[in-house]
């Protein structure tokens, strides 16, 4: 709860800073503030408490994920100053929106009442619509914003409908009350319809097949930093929220429900990876890769009891790798109209450090040890095999194999092609973010126990 309040306050603070013309101070101030909030959240870890009529429930799950979101937001904010240097008058708006987005994100993992969940997801979504369209003179950005907005609100409608049916069936929005109802009394079948619609909406947000079509277009069109936000932050927020929803609202799953999850996961992994193979735009490729990762993460829904820590680990690994990836991508492509793979030609020779970081983050996502991505996949498959869905495991493996194809396309471009471009000096912020993200990646790779045991 305190986290939520503090984050909202921080957002407002950064808006106020603009008024006092402290534009330069906004980013550092926000980062410091976020660090403080991170400390605050971490200090509350282990608490299991509901605030304000159970509107916000702080438990290990929410605290851990909140910390993760805050860390990622710090990275994203750190890159903002340089990224928005052409729109420096709007920097406070951008930072504020990111901070509010974080508030939405925290709400989505610590909700105790569906209204908080709904508002959280709307804050997150609307912030993202804005960020996607924020490069208003760029038609691609507009198109991305429009597509995201249209499909997003469509999905919101479905989520709302789902919530409505849940309410209709149980007569409450409160998770505990709902829990009581579904465990101790009869309730109409709509409940399940509602849950399913709710889940479909969330599956849309995390971009799984067949609700994934928006993702490549939006990722490609949005400004790179926004793409980073969507791919690293929004996706794992939605996934965590989905996980929490299923844990709280559908603790016992029917077989056919599992089949749906399995189908969605399989389709996402395959479609995402296969489609990514032929992409020439790194952001678009990353979108498809994200779809496949969404497929991976969705599989945690099959083993709710002990998959929370695995999900946390996977999300952390994925997000951290994504941040490192985007830190480099943003730097390389910021002067360019598009983000083709050719932009990376010869980058390995001119910028060995950044190229190395990019390589490492790609390897992490491809699941090569000892980077975190590998452990994430390992723990996930480890959980999954217990559920008995061997076919999923096989598909996951095949998907991983395919994924190497496109991740290595970038690596090939980095090292084997010659460059004919002159890039400006690397902004310090990007470099720091990239290095820190990679370090974090390696650290949680080497000591996975620290993350895994958080929710154990």
């Amino acid at each position, binding site marked *: 709860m305190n986290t*939520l309040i503090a984050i*909202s306050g921080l*957002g*407002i603070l950064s*808006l106020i800073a603009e008024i006092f013309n402290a534009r330069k101070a906004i980013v550092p101030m926000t980062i410091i503030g976020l660090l403080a909030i991170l400390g605050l959240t971490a200090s509350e870890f282990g608490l299991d408490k509901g*605030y*304000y*009529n159970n*509107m*916000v429930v702080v438990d290990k799950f929410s605290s851990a994920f909140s910390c993760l979101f805050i860390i990622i937001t710090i990275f994203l904010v750190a890159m903002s100053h340089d990224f928005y*240097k*052409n*729109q*420096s*008058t*709007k920097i406070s*708006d*951008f930072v*504020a*929106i990111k901070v*509010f*987005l974080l*508030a*939405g994100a925290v*709400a989505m993992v610590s909700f105790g*009442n569906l*209204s*908080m969940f709904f*508002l*959280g997801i*709307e*804050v997150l979504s*609307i*912030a993202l*619509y*804005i960020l996607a*369209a*924020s490069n*208003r003179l760029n038609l691609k950005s507009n198109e991305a914003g429009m597509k995201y907005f249209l499909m997003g609100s469509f999905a919101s409608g479905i989520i709302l409908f789902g919530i409505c049916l849940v309410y209709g069936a149980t007569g409450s929005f409160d998770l505990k009350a709902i829990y009581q109802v579904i465990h101790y009394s*009869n*309730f*109409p*079948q*709509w409940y399940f*319809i509602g849950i399913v619609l709710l889940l479909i909406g969330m599956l849309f947000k995390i971009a799984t097949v067949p609700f994934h079509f928006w993702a490549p277009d939006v990722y490609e069109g949005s400004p790179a930093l926004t793409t980073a936000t969507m791919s690293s932050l929004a996706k794992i927020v939605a996934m965590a929220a989905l996980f929490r929803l299923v844990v709280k609202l559908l603790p016992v799953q029917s077989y056919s429900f599992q089949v749906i999850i399995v189908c969605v996961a399989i389709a996402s992994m395959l479609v995402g990876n296969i489609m990514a193979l032929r992409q020439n735009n790194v952001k678009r490729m990353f979108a498809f890769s994200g779809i496949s990762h969404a497929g991976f993460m969705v599989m945690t829904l099959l083993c709710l009891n002990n998959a929370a820590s695995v999900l946390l680990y996977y999300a952390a690994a994925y997000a951290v790798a994504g941040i490192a990836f985007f830190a480099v991508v943003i730097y390389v492509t910021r002067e360019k109209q598009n983000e083709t793979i050719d932009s990376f030609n010869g980058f390995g020779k001119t910028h060995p450090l950044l190229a190395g970081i990019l390589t490492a983050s790609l390897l992490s996502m491809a699941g090569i040890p000892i980077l975190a991505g590998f452990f994430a996949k390992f723990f996930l498959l480890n959980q999954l095999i217990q559920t008995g869905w061997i076919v999923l495991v096989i598909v996951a493996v095949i998907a991983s194999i395919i994924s190497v194809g496109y991740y290595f396309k970038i690596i090939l471009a980095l090292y084997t092609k010659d460059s004919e471009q002159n890039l400006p000096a690397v902004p310090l912020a990007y470099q720091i973010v990239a290095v820190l993200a990679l370090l974090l990646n390696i650290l949680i790779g080497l000591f996975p126990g620290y993350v895994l045991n958080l929710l154990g």
Partner: protein
Amino acid sequence: MSTLLIIFYFLSAITIATAFLTIISKNPIHSAIYLVICFFSVAGHYLLFNAQFLAIVHIIVYSGAIMVLFLFTIMLMNLNKEGEPHKKWATKLAAVISFGLICFVMLAVFIKAMPVIAAYKQTGQDFQSIKVLGKVLLNEYMVPFEFASVLLLVAMIGTVLLSKKEKSVQ
């Protein structure tokens, strides 16, 4: 057939018809007008439920704010002509098919699920007067209420952000 039922059917017919007309009208202005009627009919439904406060708010927000916004935008863009170009028959077909499909599926699903409905019980307690709503909203739902302000704030900043011209940096 009771009066209530007749009113319900009447209102429902208006709601559905105007909703439909909103969609198929070629002129956006007409669509907007139909939509306003639709909103009013929905408000009528609210009144049927005795939810007066909600009905009022509904009219204020939707018809008053949102529709004005729509109309304003339509005017701003000078879209009040029946200018929508040809649509491919395939997209139409797809739309009709999916409409039919989703409609059929949802209705079928609900019809199949319906028997669980328990008998309607009336407690007689006041649950939807302004007073009660206010209490619920500002006590139990205080946090979401505050959080909605964050939502609106974001929307506000966003709209400004999207419309504001960048000042060139010195």
